[in-house]
């Protein structure tokens, strides 16, 4: 139609412009982005899947279940290595902790939970707390484990242990941690020169190695790892959660005490897994041999 317009009878300008024959606009040679979005989506889904599997289950229920399903330690295992003990030797509950002084989780556990456990369970005579070295691969894992043993040799393990954890950031990245520990030692009442000389020697290497080997034989992979009356329990995130687990394992130890008020969701459910944990199977009688205070 537009092709018929003659020079004598031109089309209106607007129409003429439209009628100019021109090549059809080339379709841009772009590939669709759909495959790209599919790949992006798959990567996202895979990543979210991995992240979800890394989420640590929270709440006492799982911890109690784990305690109930884990076989207790054998007497032989318990007697092989001496831990560093605190509390009554004949306490009905024995808590074993495998820890590394340079591990951030252990420092967190020592700051948030250990004082409450000591106050409510150990100092009340219900439990005895036994510390075992389980040095991981941090720069000063072994050195700090031996330092703890050196403090124990002077009878100040628990004071020094608290100091090491509380001020972990001050020595964990130091060029010479022993220099940092010197004032710590002095503060907790240790003979500093004796302590430093002990740490700079290879004293207690054997004890730390044995403690580490014990942990490995028990399947300890990370720290802190807690055993209650020989049963491995999930590292608690709150005292209430921990007490729930302990009550499940050794209910007799709490016969005179009502349950601690626990935050919602962490209180033991009546008839729940805690009630099914076999009481009396824990080798409490064997525990003192393992947990006796380490001899200097």
């Amino acid at each position, binding site marked *: 139609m537009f092709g018929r317009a003659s020079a004598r009878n031109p089309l209106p300008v607007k129409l003429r412009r439209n009628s100019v024959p021109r090549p059809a*606009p*080339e379709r*841009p*040679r*772009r*590939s669709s*982005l759909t495959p*790209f979005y599919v*790949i*992006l989506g798959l*990567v*996202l889904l895979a*990543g*979210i899947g*991995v*992240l979800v599997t*890394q*989420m*640590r289950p929270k709440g006492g229920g799982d911890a109690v279940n784990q305690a109930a399903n884990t076989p207790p330690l054998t007497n032989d295992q318990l007697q092989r290595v001496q831990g560093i003990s605190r509390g009554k030797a004949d306490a009905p509950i024995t808590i074993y902790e495998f820890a590394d002084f*340079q*591990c*951030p*989780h252990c*420092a967190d556990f020592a700051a948030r939970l250990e004082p409450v456990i000591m106050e409510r369970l150990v100092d009340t005579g219900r439990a005895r707390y036994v510390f075992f070295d389980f040095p*991981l*691969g*941090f*720069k000063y894992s072994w050195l700090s484990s031996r330092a703890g043993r050196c403090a124990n040799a002077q009878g100040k393990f628990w004071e020094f242990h608290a100091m090491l954890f509380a001020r*972990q*950031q001050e020595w*964990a*990245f130091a060029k010479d941690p022993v220099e940092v520990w010197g004032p710590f030692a002095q503060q907790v009442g240790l003979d500093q020169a004796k302590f430093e000389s002990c740490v700079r020697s290879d004293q207690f290497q054997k004890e730390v190695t044995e403690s580490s080997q014990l942990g490995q034989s028990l399947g300890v992979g*990370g720290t802190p790892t807690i055993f209650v009356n020989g049963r491995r329990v999930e*590292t608690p995130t709150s005292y209430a959660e921990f007490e729930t687990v302990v009550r499940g394992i050794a209910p007799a130890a709490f016969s005179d005490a009502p349950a601690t008020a626990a935050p919602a969701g962490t209180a033991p459910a009546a008839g729940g897994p805690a009630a099914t944990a076999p009481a009396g199977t824990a080798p409490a009688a064997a525990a003192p041999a393992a947990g006796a205070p380490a001899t200097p």
Partner: protein
Amino acid sequence: MREEVAGFEHEAAPPLARMATAVLALIGLLVSTYLSLYKLGVIGGLTCQVGSCEQVQASPWAEFLHVPVSLWGVGAYVTILAIAIVGLQPRHQHARWVPLALFGLSAAGVAFSGWLTYIEAYVIEMWCQWCVTSAIIITIIFLLSIPGLRQAR
């Protein structure tokens, strides 16, 4: 118009590089999110076959301006991912700001990661495999952004 059409035929920044940038930024985002979730206490522990991830994360260098370094990473990767995706849209494929922004952000990321890697190697003498992974990712993104600079001229 013709130029525009021609532009589609001779793209200054190959879309493939931008797609790769987006995918890498997403992987970097997931890594940073993983470390951030750990720092925020949502994840109990870090899977770390190589090095001492948790100790590195507990170090004073794991925070920058009182914000966890991993959260800075989340912010950077989200921004790079968004720019790469926007830069793939026809409307913005030839925009000058896209290659400039990708280059600038990834260059800053490489500088920051380089500093953190130096800290790991020479100051705390411990390695975090996830931090190294992130450093490699941002370096590749940076390298991919260099050819795109021709488009910005």
